Structure formats: structure tokens, C-alpha cells
């Protein structure tokens, strides 16, 4: 500011700035701030994953994964089998319900709605529905299923998780179908394919890996949900593979109740369950990335 720049520093990297020291300092501070933000967020992430591994590994064993949950909740030692079974059963049932409906909804939005008012409304509502909190879905299923039919079972939890997954799957399917080039549809029409045949035999297969990847992400998110299950599936200490009969439990619910205990036994089981849950969730997340990486690579090579 005190000295007048005689000549612009020619050919210097423009991003380093040619201004006064103050401007350069501000720029450096801003860049440092951006990097710092990333660091501030990554430290807790590393801490959380580190703690889950450190505290979860000691109790991890074959017995932990398969044995029943101790009846006496303060007891130490293993047993999370019923919760693992419950998480798999409930999430699986939710997926079975939500995927066909969601894919059909996505097909409607991408292939049929053609900017119609109904289509626009449904798309908007599906987007909005992704933001409905999971506790609301839990209360909703409690009022229309659990309370109405006086049934506490895995199916209630699956209904709630399915409602959470549905809008995500609709949106992913629509996005993926829209990526399929129009030429493909026209080729099919030119060969005499009718609309339904074109969608089912040509368009869907072309978008399949993208849809699968989106579904896997939705499954990963649903598997970790707690709030929708709290009032719908009840609690049980033994493995129950029945969808419609008898109470059930899940890893997330076990973590929630054991985390509030002051005794070491349940706390250990909470960390073990957390490690198991994180492994399940990350496996699905990684699978989704692998599927979509495969998709983009094949896409790029075309």
C-alpha cells in the first residue's frame, strides 16, 4: 500500500494474488480457514471410528455375534445375536417392500409424468418426504399399525424403515432412468417394442447398476436407524426370525438402551453392537460405491 507496484509480476500464478501484503494475508488466512474446517470435522470422525473399534473389538467374538442377549441386563459378557438377526430381518423386509414400489414410482416420474402437474407434485413431495424425520415415521407406524392392530413385531419396524427408504429410491430411480439416452428408447420403439417392454427390457437394465447403488445406500442408512424401531418392534432377548409374530430387537435399539446404562457389561455390549452396526453400514456403503464405480467405468468406456 505504501509502495506503488511498478510492474505487475508477469506470468505469476494468478491464484497466488498480486495484491498488497494485506490482501495476500487475507487470502492465505481464508485458505487456511478452509483447510482447518476440514480438519475440525475429520478429527471427531476419526475419534468416533477409533473409539468404536478400540472399545468394540475386545468383546467381539463368535459368541458375541451369535448368542442370546443376557436376560439380566447388568450381566457382563456376550450376546448380540438376536439384535443382528433383527437388524437383518427388519432392514431386509423394508427393502423388499420399498424397492419395487420405489422403482415403479421412479419409472412413473421419469417415463410417464412428462411434466404433468401430478408428476411435478409427486416429485416435489418425494423430495420433501426425504426430509421427514425418522422419529415421525416411527410414531406414524405406531398409530396406524402397532396401536391399531395391537401388534409389536418386526413388520412394524420394517414398515417404518420402508417409508423412510421409499422417497430415496424413487428419486434415485428417476435420476438414473433420466441418464439413459433417448436413442436407446427410440431404437426399441423402432424395433416395434411397446412402451412397457421398452422400459422393462431396455431402459431399466441400462440403469440397473445406478439404481442398485442407490438402493444399497438407502439400505445402509435404514440399517442404522433407531427412532423408527423404538415403539414398533418391542424388545426381546432371543433370536426371532418371525416377521409377523412376536417382539423383536435390533442393533441400534440395543445400543440406545445399553448406552444409558452405568454398568460395564451393557456398556461393553453397546460398543460391540456399535462396531457390528458400523461394519454392516459401511459394507453396504462400500458395495454401493463399487457398483457405481463399475457403472461409471463401463459408461465412460462406451
Amino acid at each position, binding site marked *: 500500500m505504501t509502495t506503488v507496484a511498478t510492474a505487475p509480476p508477469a506470468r505469476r500464478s494468478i491464484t497466488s494474488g498480486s495484491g498488497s501484503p494485506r*490482501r495476500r494475508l487475507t487470502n492465505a488466512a481464508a485458505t487456511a480457514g478452509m483447510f482447518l474446517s476440514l480438519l475440525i470435522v475429520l478429527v471427531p470422525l476419526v475419534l*468416533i471410528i477409533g*473409539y468404536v473399534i478400540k472399545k468394540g473389538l475386545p468383546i467381539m467374538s463368535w459368541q458375541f455375534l451369535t448368542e442370546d442377549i443376557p436376560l439380566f441386563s447388568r450381566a457382563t459378557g456376550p450376546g448380540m445375536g438376536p439384535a443382528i438377526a433383527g437388524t437383518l430381518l427388519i432392514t431386509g423386509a423394508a427393502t423388499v417392500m420399498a424397492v419395487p*414400489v420405489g422403482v415403479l414410482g421412479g419409472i412413473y*416420474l421419469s417415463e410417464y*409424468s412428462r411434466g404433468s402437474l401430478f408428476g411435478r407434485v409427486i416429485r416435489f*413431495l418425494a423430495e420433501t418426504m426425504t426430509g421427514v424425520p425418522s422419529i*415421525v415415521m416411527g410414531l406414524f407406524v405406531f398409530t396406524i399399525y402397532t396401536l391399531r392392530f395391537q401388534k409389536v413385531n418386526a413388520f412394524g419396524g420394517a414398515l417404518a424403515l420402508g417409508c423412510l427408504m421409499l422417497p430415496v429410491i424413487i428419486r434415485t430411480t428417476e435420476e438414473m432412468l433420466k441418464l439413459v439416452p433417448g436413442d436407446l428408447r427410440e431404437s426399441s420403439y423402432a424395433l416395434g417394442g411397446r412402451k412397457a417392454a421398452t422400459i422393462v427390457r431396455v431402459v431399466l437394465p441400462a440403469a440397473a447398476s445406478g439404481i442398485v447403488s442407490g438402493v444399497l445406500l438407502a439400505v445402509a442408512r435404514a440399517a442404522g436407524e433407531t427412532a423408527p424401531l*423404538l415403539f414398533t418392534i418391542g424388545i426381546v432377548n432371543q433370536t426371532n426370525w418371525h416377521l409377523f409374530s412376536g417382539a423383536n430387537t435390533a442393533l*441400534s435399539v440395543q445400543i440406545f438402551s445399553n448406552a444409558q446404562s452405568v454398568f460395564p457389561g451393557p456398556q461393553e455390549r453397546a460398543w460391540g453392537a456399535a462396531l457390528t452396526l458400523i461394519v454392516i453400514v459401511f459394507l453396504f456403503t462400500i458395495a454401493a460405491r463399487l457398483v457405481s464405480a463399475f457403472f461409471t467405468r463401463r459408461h465412460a468406456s462406451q
Partner: protein
Amino acid sequence: MAIDTRPAPAPAAPPPAPLAGGPNPPGRISDRVLFVLAIVGGGLVLVILALIAVSMISKGWPAVRSQGLDYFTSDVWDPAHGVFGTLAFTFGTVVISAIALLFAVPLSVGIALFITEVAPRSLRRHIIYVVDLLAAVPSVVYGLWGIAVLAPALPGFYTYVHDIVAPIPVLGTVLDGDPIVGKSFMTAALILALMVTPIITSITRETFATVPQSQKDAAYALGATRWEMIRAAVFPHSRSGMVSAVLLGLGRAIGETIAVALVIGSNAQITAKMFSGGDALPSVIANEFGEATGTQRSALIGMGVMIFFITLTIGIIARTVLNRSARRAEGSL
């Protein structure tokens, strides 16, 4: 009309029958079936949202009727005596969401800028992946870490912070506790901030990525530093995207249940001291619904209705802003 040198068009014969053939080809039925199935699949969204509103309002209404306006304006929640005022929980929800955004928004914008403007291209995907991992961690795991590791460690830090800011008028009160405890408004807000950061980051990042390169180059050509370019080209172009990102983060923060339930301290009170225990709408539902019956259950469902409509309204505003900005971005290209 252009001169048509080609031979006359084919005689007006009936168009060739589709290969599937016949006056009522089998494909026609499957066309119908798929269309009906698809529209039902899409329409289910409408049905579910309507059912949520109707069924929950009808189950929550008895509490509002029995408590009157006090249901919303009283901070006395006393199930033993049948008194259900929700104001303390609404207060808690508003306060922790606001503090969470106060931390999360600058962090998210910083990370999004780092990814789009600073990080080398080869690193970008990896950073995005790592930040997305934050969103993949289940909220109950955040809660477990919060209650078992973070909350016990924080009172010392809180006391230290309070001692520094004590003489400052407003901060001295806000950064205080009654008493200072680990499971508090502030702890819940910190965990929430961590949970909404990946959401806000991903939307702002996508908005920043739509800023036209020409505008950035123009700013650089005028001699701007990177930070000046960001302020002159990136921010003005991304304002509505950032607003909707913040709103979507807010919606997520208001609805977040389990992690907050574990670390907020379950202490229904309205206080300016953020280092003391509090409670929030969703966490009360999670903690009390299991044993609740009668009016209490109805009051808790009513709180669910409040959360539903608040998050729905915020979501609708956010999506409207986002769609409008996306349309404008398409138009400007």
C-alpha cells in the same frame, strides 16, 4: 417450404402394424398394467404423507384439547399430574438447532470451498468420500460416543471456557451452566453440528460447482486473489443454494432424535445457560413414549405432529429455493 425432390410420399396406406401385431396385441395390456403400477407407486408418496398428517393429528388432538393453549405455551411438563406443556422442549429444539448451525454452516462452507476451489482435482473425490462417511455413521453411534466419551470429558472444558468469558456480558451468561454439566444443550448442539455438516457441505459444494468458470476467470483477470474471487464470483452466484442447504441442515437438526436424546441431559427447562442440561422435542418422545399411555402418549404424538409440520415447511421452502436456483442456473447457460 423446401423444394421436395424426393418421390411422392408413400400412398396413404395404414401405418405398418407394430411387430407385436393384431388389433389387440398382448403388449397393450402390459402397457396399461405398468402405467397403473407406476402411477400407484408414485402416488403412494402422496398417500403416506396424507396418512401421516391425518393419523397423527387425530391421535395427538386429545392432548391439545385437554391442555388448551398451555400445550404450546407452558413449560410445565408433569406427567404424574397430567400437565403437559411443551414450550421447554420447543425451546431446546430451537436453541440446539440454532447453535448447531452456527458451528456447522461456516465449517460446511469452508469444506465445500476447499473441495471445489483449493484441493487438487485428484484429491477431491477422496475428500468428498470421507466427509460423506460422517453422514453414514448411524446417529445412535454418535449418541454412544457422545454419552460415553464426549460428555464426561466436556465439563472441564466448559468450566475453562466459562472462566475466560465470565466477565463478558452476554457470553458470560450463555457460556455458563446451572450447574455446568457434560450432558447439556451445548453438547447436543456440538453433536448435531457434526451430523448436519455433511448435508450442508454436499449441497453447497454442488452449488459452488455450478458457478460458471467464465465468472471466476473474470474475477482473476481483474487481479483478485482466490478469496476475493470467491467473494465476488462464487458467493453471489450461490446465495440461494446456500440458503436451501442451511434450511435442509436445519430440518435435519430439528428432527434428529437419538443422538440428542442421549447427550442433552433430559432436563426440561428454559434457560440462557447453554452448559446446563435441557431437553428437545424428539428426544422427549424417544425417552418417554415407551411407558406413556393416555394423555401423555397423545401429547407426545402431538409433539411428533409439530416436528412433522415444522420440518415439512422448512423442507418445502428449501426445495422451492433450490429448484428455482437450479432453473435459473440452467437458464443462464
